């Protein structure tokens, strides 16, 4: 009895210790997030850690211990990114407006200008010291060896002897990185930094901060922060790069709706996305189901071998198969065109003709997807009572009629939710597009890069990550629309599954 009590006490102490260590490290991270200038992440981390601490210390939340870790992972890595991406859609976050306001201001404050007439030529001595020859009224100076610099700082001292032997300019080029990192303290209190390959010069900050958002240059002109566009403006009212991201309200969404150069290709892409998702669903389902029915024919020998061979496209990692197809379809040295030109004398332009590129995508996607349906339909067929076929045979029904009257309807019913899921998956089948065509060939006459094989998702991905603009704001806005569409499809699917569950539930009970 006492040993059990001891064990329990030991367990309680261990748990308390573990919990406090976790809490402390979480608090440490929260503090560091705050210091790093990420208050949102600090708050998020704090909330997550606090809930975890409460759930794991009080018995009344026992049940939640089982689901909290999983729910937290989903919240942080699925829900939060979705919310964050949508919120980016309301900003002008892009390659031009990439930083935070603080970073931009700091950037301007760190800009330096050379003090007029402070240039001094220098030599690198054979001992890798920096030697400034006597010039006008300035005495000759020398530093210690550049490798002895501490934090990039060297001190120059007066030098009265004969000039030391200088290395050729090649040595300066070789040591450029080291020289650029140097600041040399002068005996009179000034500082020199390298200025080109032959000179050192004194520098001073170009701007001083007057108030937050107003910077005054050495010549008296001012930069004023414009928080509406996320740029500093100079005295002429022109914007000065770099910019920071600011909220722009519905501007991105309005742009999508009203700008012809964006809305026209987007409509075209949306249409193709729907067609692609629908045709992919139909083709993979038909081919897969057809093969499953054939492979279910009891009289056929070697069904096992056929099945394994036909599963292979599903078993091979898809990123490999897609890239293999990319090579095989290559216009000039792909094997598909090689065979076609030998047999038929044609060399289709798979990657430059929009129609052929779309055909290629559907071929590849059917190849990738039919085994999934073959496997599933194979399972559903097993559930069809054999009596029905016997009865049909008595009536003189042939195999084709059997298929459409008995088999297909009974495969279709349980398949509906999966068909919708397949539609949604192909609606967002971004990896296929990115790896095979990258969206190309491009649609002519658009202001943002849009390809004729782009799906909405890959189009958005390219706006954000590939082409020159890197317009995260616009990408975020389109993503928000896609999220809403996907959410709608998911909801429809969900209702279908509920109905199906109710039906089968009623049938079995």
């Amino acid at each position, binding site marked *: 009895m006492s040993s059990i009590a001891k064990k329990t006490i030991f367990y309680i102490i261990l748990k308390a210790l573990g919990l406090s260590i976790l809490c402390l490290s979480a608090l440490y991270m929260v503090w560091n997030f705050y210091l790093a200038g990420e208050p949102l992440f600090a708050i998020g981390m704090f909330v997550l850690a606090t809930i975890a601490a409460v759930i794991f210390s009080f018995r009344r939340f026992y049940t939640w211990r089982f689901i909290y870790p999983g729910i937290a992972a989903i919240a942080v*890595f699925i829900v939060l990114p979705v919310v964050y991406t949508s919120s980016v859609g309301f900003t002008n976050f892009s390659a031009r407006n990439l930083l935070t306001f603080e970073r931009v201001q700091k950037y301007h404050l760190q800009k330096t200008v050379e003090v007029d007439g402070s240039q001094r030529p220098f030599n690198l001595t054979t001992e890798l010291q920096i030697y400034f020859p006597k010039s006008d009224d300035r005495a000759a100076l020398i530093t210690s060896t550049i490798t002895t610099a501490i934090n990039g700082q060297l001190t120059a001292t007066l030098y009265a002897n004969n000039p030391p032997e200088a290395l050729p300019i090649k040595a300066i080029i070789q040591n450029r990185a080291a020289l650029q990192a140097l600041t040399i303290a002068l005996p009179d209190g000034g500082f020199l930094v390298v200025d080109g390959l032959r000179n050192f010069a004194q520098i001073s900050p170009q701007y001083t901060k007057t108030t937050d958002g107003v910077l005054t240059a050495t010549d008296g002109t001012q930069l004023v922060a414009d928080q509406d566009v996320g740029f500093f403006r100079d005295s002429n009212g022109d914007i000065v790069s770099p910019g920071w991201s600011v909220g722009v309200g519905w501007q991105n969404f309005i742009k999508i709706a009203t700008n012809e150069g964006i809305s026209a290709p987007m409509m075209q892409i949306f249409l193709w996305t729907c067609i692609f998702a629908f045709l992919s669903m139909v083709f993979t389902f038909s081919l897969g189901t057809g093969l499953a029915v054939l492979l279910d024919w009891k009289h056929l020998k070697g069904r096992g071998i056929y099945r394994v*061979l036909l599963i292979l496209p599903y078993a091979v990692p898809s990123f490999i198969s897609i*890239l*293999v197809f990319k*090579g095989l379809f290559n216009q000039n040295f792909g094997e598909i065109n090689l065979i076609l030109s030998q047999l038929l004398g044609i060399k289709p332009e798979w990657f430059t003709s929009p129609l052929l590129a779309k055909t290629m995508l559907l071929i590849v996607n059917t190849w990738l997807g039919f085994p999934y349906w073959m496997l599933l339909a194979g399972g559903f067929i097993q559930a069809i009572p054999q009596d029905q076929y016997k009865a049909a045979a008595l009536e003189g029904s042939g195999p084709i009629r059997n298929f459409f009257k008995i088999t297909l309807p009974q495969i279709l019913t349980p398949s509906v939710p999966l068909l919708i899921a397949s539609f949604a998956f192909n609606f967002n089948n971004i990896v296929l597009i990115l790896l095979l065509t990258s969206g190309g060939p491009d649609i002519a006459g658009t202001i943002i890069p849009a390809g004729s094989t782009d799906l909405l998702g890959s189009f958005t*991905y390219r706006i954000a990550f590939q082409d020159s603009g890197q317009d995260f704001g616009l990408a975020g806005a389109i993503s928000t629309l896609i999220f809403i569409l996907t959410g709608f499809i998911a909801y429809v699917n969900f209702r279908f599954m509920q109905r199906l*569950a109710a039906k089968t539930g009623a049938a079995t009970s």
Partner: protein
Amino acid sequence: MMVENKQSLKLRKLVTHGFLLSICLLMMFPFFMILSISFREGNFATGSLFPDNPTLEHWALALGFEYTRPDGTVIKPPYPVLLWLWNSIKIGVIASVGILVLSTTSAFAFSRMQFRGKKSILDSLLIIQMFPGALTVIAMYAIFDALGQVVPWLGIDSHPALIISYLSAITLHIWTIKGYFDSIDPSLDKAAQLDGATPWQAFRYIFLPLALPIIAVVFMLSFIYLVNEYPVASVLLHNTEDMTLAVGARQYLYPQKYLWGDFAAAAVLSGLPITILFLFSQRFLIGGMSDGAVKG
């Protein structure tokens, strides 16, 4: 009548065999080609299915060896394929174990415990899992960029970061495992409860051992999914040595640097283990797939 039937049966069988064979050949065509290309000389050459001058160059390079051509030039491996494969397997296995821990515990709670909001959480999981991860990569980047400033080993370009982000791929698995737990006889845990077992003990000593088959299925499904995952990995991993196969394989086929032959060998080499694993476990997988899908 019977004779005619037998004959037509024979004919139908023949036609079916012919049809299936040609479909098989058509479907296998890319595999034959890629195997053939991996033994062909050079990176551009076209040729017959059986290479005229078979060479092991691409295979040596894929396996990480330097290759000396007959004329004496030494070719260095362009990319560390085996390292990529190792990265993929390592990340896939660790993340799948993590996914199993999170999804089995959650599924147990959803199957056997009563709490507020249970049904709505379960339902929203189904809807959440359809959101395309590829579109949230900006956010993923921002999260791990910030995290990296505080905890360097959890930042961009680190495997732990990728593994942690993969832990969220549990939505469907929770449903699959819950379906399995639901089918376990309730009298078992009632008995355990009467004997004074806590829910945790019931989970650990009764449910987990019974659920081994479905755990194997979920492990395989999640491993295959993770090895194939491209968007998040491509945003988080930039160094060539850190890449997973899915991210790295693409490097071979840039228009500026088109290494078709080298790619072929690397593709066969790296695709083989995953393919064999899949074929090996496909019997279990099919059950898991349709269970998870239909039991919703």
